[in-house]
């Protein structure tokens, strides 16, 4: 989803203030999207294992991060 050009620009931004702010904003956006997608997957009956596989992280990591927020 993140185009290569975007990453190039982020890493190439000469002004640290702007470059770092962009990275921080991107990270926040990713967190929001992850929450949204994990919720949707769980609502559709996906297991934590299935979600973890697609996200490319361990089942424990995804569970630790999202299970409590979702109250299960």
């Amino acid at each position, binding site marked *: 989803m993140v*185009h290569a*050009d*975007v990453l190039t*620009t*982020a890493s190439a*931004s000469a*002004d640290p*203030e*702007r470059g770092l*702010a*962009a990275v*921080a*904003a*991107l990270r*926040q*956006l990713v*967190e*929001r*999207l992850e*929450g*949204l997608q994990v*919720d*949707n997957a769980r609502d559709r009956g996906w297991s934590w294992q299935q979600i973890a596989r697609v996200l490319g992280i361990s089942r424990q990591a995804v569970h630790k991060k999202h299970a409590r927020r979702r109250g299960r």
Partner: protein
Amino acid sequence: MFERFTHPAREAVVQAQEEVRRQQGERLGTEHLLLGVLADTDNTAAAALRRLGLTPAATRRRIAELAGPDTGLDAEALRSIGIDLDAVRRQAEAAFGPGALNRHCRGSRHRGFLPFSPRAKKVLELALRESVRRRDGHIGPEHIVLGILREARGLAAVILTEAKVDRAAFEAALIAREPGQADAG
């Protein structure tokens, strides 16, 4: 830098912070600085802007129109790396309903000083420079407005430009007083 700020200028920054908190935002942009200046009915800069037709309510409305619903995400920073937050928000809402992108907002955790956007920082630097240029010896709300005008690219500058407020018009309005109005410091 803040030590040179007059009481009304500090008040404008405090009001700008309040504005961000009310909107559950995470960082202070140029538009909040403009609203901060306008919030104080007593300062000369706000009086000048009012004379030029800018009211807090109309300005707030225009900011919402231009910036879209506040997601608490830094649209400006994302744009600098080629991400259109508006497009992302539209896609998220198309799939998951209105306000989808805000569902996982942690809310404003900040109780202390909120971070300034790079443009808002630049505006304050330019306010200082304006003060030096005019040999005023202090930074008042009027210097913040001049800083916004000189920075020229933030949301606040866009709104001022739309309202046909440029440096010349603003400086003229600062000097001119409404009939019978006392100098309000």
